[in-house]
């Protein structure tokens, strides 16, 4: 049976059981959208920007484990996806991004809306293709889905010229895939797994250090069983949050620059760091020359390139975390670590996170804590900066895949479109984007998408009128020279303003009016006692997005903080630690 390239693309998506496409049409991709016009098995979500489409597909993928699909046009359509692809690539998110391209005979001629998409996207994708022969199209699409979703997952881009979309072909979408250069190792080395079990048994101060790989490999269940069996204290990277419930007695919290006292002291005092699916990111380790000096390190990861890159590892185990942990579980023995449990417990007890912040206005951590009370089972997405750290530290995460955040690339503007994608994939759960007033404006156009799709996504804007995290650095390390971080600043403001005051001009935009302009619900919370009533009000709205602006303390800081270049035990715990 003969069909066009465009029809083959849709057949491929059907065969891969794709139910949602996030996209934006344009000249070079009209043939594929034309097939979608009458396709009933797939829902096309029209975002307002291609970056929003990729982040939405990312949120869909992270919250479910399924591959997110993006369909955009050539040139600017493709270049607009780059930040989204880089975000997904850094955090190992499976995405297949299909881009239209100018017809093959025009490639290289600087045709209208032409870009070297494969060249531009190469460093930010796991792999990419330019299809120049219709005979390859089916195989390439099959490989794209296979590569995106296996091994260490990641985005794969397929660039399809318009003439290829229109050509007739007799080829079909293959059922099997064979790539001679790509054979991700899944089963771990049994000898190494035994050695790891031995080392854990003998350890006096062991610590599990978990990352995003635990969520990706769906091994939260087996990991929790291992913690029950061994009673070993656990710390988490930003991406690993949710591996244990935040309130679990053995959970010491997130480590790193804004990690908890217990987690950072734990990692510096441990004699065995058992890392699973994490890549020892610099924001987690601090100064590497001081990091976990007394510890032997076991490292499970599916990506060999993540092992012994930043820290040298004693027992590397390459493979799928779930398979390895399942093999490890029966041979694990409980180590005798009562005094270590006591020690870590004391750190936790004596240095809990404080939700109090300085200055007038609502304390941002308190907003997060109230969100946690009113919406105990939400999927939380974040933007990047203070909002991200407060969400990570103060929301009580219980389930896997419940914190969607741009950990590696640190993409402001990620959270809101990701929340849209997550809500589409999880209609029965509450999805909340915890945002700052700066980052929400990076993809605020997606309010239109959320309204049109009738999604009850809640956007909680912690409005301090600043690019808060940069301002915090400027306060601590640049003597309050708030250079280009005040979002209210106007020419009439005092030059070199170092603090907010009565003279501050009104903030723009008015987020409540903005929400209403899009036909979303808008609320503003000025007083702490109004937080819960407004959240409860928001809970009742189930057919459109809700924007809640919290006017928070303008100069609240995220504590604790390990200054850049310091060791993890050299934490500033709060304002009182500042000279």
């Amino acid at each position: 049976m003969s069909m066009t390239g465009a029809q083959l693309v849709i057949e491929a998506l059907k065969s891969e059981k794709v139910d949602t496409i996030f996209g934006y049409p344009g000249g070079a991709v009209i043939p594929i959208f034309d097939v979608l016009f009458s396709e009933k098995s797939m829902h096309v979500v029209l975002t307002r920007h291609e970056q929003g489409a990729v982040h939405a597909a990312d949120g869909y993928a992270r919250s479910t484990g399924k591959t997110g699909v993006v369909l955009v046009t050539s040139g600017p359509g493709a270049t607009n996806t780059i930040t989204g692809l880089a975000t997904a690539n850094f955090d190992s998110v499976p995405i297949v991004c299909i881009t239209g391209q100018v017809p093959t005979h025009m490639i290289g001629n600087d045709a209208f809306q032409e870009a070297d998409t494969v060249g531009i996207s190469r460093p930010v994708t796991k792999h990419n293709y330019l299809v120049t022969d219709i005979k390859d199209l089916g195989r390439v699409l099959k490989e794209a889905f296979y590569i995106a979703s296996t091994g260490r997952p990641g985005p794969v881009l397929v660039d399809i010229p318009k003439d290829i979309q229109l050509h007739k072909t007799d080829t079909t979408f293959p059922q099997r895939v064979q790539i001679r250069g790509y054979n991700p190792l899944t089963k771990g080395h049994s000898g190494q797994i035994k050695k790891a079990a031995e080392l854990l048994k003998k350890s006096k101060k062991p610590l599990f250090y978990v990352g995003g790989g635990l969520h990706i490999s769906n091994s939260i269940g087996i990991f929790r069983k291992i913690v029950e069996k061994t009673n070993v204290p656990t710390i988490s990277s930003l991406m690993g949050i949710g591996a244990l419930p935040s309130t679990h007695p053995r959970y010491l919290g997130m480590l790193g620059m804004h990690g908890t006292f217990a987690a950072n002291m734990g990692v510096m005092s441990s004699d065995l760091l058992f890392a699973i699916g994490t890549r020892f990111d610099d924001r987690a380790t601090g100064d590497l020359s001081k990091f976990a000096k007394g510890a032997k390190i076991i490292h499970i990861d599916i990506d060999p390139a993540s092992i012994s890159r930043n820290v040298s590892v004693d027992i590397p185990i390459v493979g799928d975390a779930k398979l390895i942990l399942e093999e490890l579980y029966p041979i694990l023995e409980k180590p005798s670590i009562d005094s270590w449990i006591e020690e870590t417990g004391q750190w936790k007890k004596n240095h809990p996170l404080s939700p109090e912040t300085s200055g007038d206005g609502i304390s941002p951590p308190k907003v997060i804590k109230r969100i946690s009370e009113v919406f105990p089972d939400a999927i939380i997405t974040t933007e990047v900066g203070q909002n991200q750290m407060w969400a990570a530290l103060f929301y009580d995460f219980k389930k896997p895949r419940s914190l969607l955040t741009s950990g590696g690339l640190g993409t402001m503007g990620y959270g809101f479109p990701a929340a849209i994608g997550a809500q589409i994939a999880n209609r029965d759960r509450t999805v909340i984007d915890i945002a700052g007033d700066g980052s929400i404006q990076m993809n605020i156009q997606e309010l239109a998408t959320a309204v049109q799709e009738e999604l009850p996504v809640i956007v909680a804007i912690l409005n301090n009128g600043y690019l808060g995290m940069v301002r915090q650095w400027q306060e601590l390390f640049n003597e309050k020279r708030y250079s280009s971080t005040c979002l209210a600043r106007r020419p009439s403001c005092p030059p070199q303003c170092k603090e907010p005051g009565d003279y501050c001009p009104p903030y723009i935009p008015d987020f409540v009016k903005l929400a209403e302009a899009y036909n979303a619900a808008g609320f503003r919370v000025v007083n702490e006692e109004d937080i819960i009533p407004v959240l409860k009000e928001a809970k009742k709205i189930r057919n459109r997005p809700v924007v809640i602006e919290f006017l928070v303390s303008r100069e609240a800081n995220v504590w604790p903080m390990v200054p850049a270049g310091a060791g993890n035990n050299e934490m500033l715990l709060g304002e009182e630690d500042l000279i």
Partner: protein
Amino acid sequence: MKHVISMLVENHQGVLSRISGLFSGRGYNLESITAGVTRDPTISRITLVCYGDDVVFEQIKKQLNRLIDVIKIADLTEKPAIHRELALIKVKAEPKIRGEIFQVADVFRAKVLDVGTDSMVLELTGSSEKIDDFTNILQPYNVTELARSGLISMERAKKTAKKTKGGKQ
């Protein structure tokens, strides 16, 4: 430390840019890279010479292995292997000193490919060090152009015969 990697890759367009892009993107030092098709027309062999300490080199190998189009990697740094490079050298050669240059070329077993009124072109095949030496020696004669192919390498053939069943001869 200098390292030599020989690898088999898919003979697709863009493979070379994936590899060179990996080096530039991650800040690795790449000295030379050569590519050519193998006996199997769907596979190319790429030989590259790079610099880095052991930790960096380990990462380079792992990162190359992550590329979908890379089929197989062999590290020829420590292994017994033959390394060859080809150089074309244009040198000033007034008639009265031609004889001298011929002699030098003869010592290095370089070929004379072309002779003009005041210059000549030599071809030399050998290890990179040999080519370095040759060009250094020619420097006083004024080398005006130098083209080097970059290294190609191959593991040596096994020199010990497999033991046959039944033991000694």
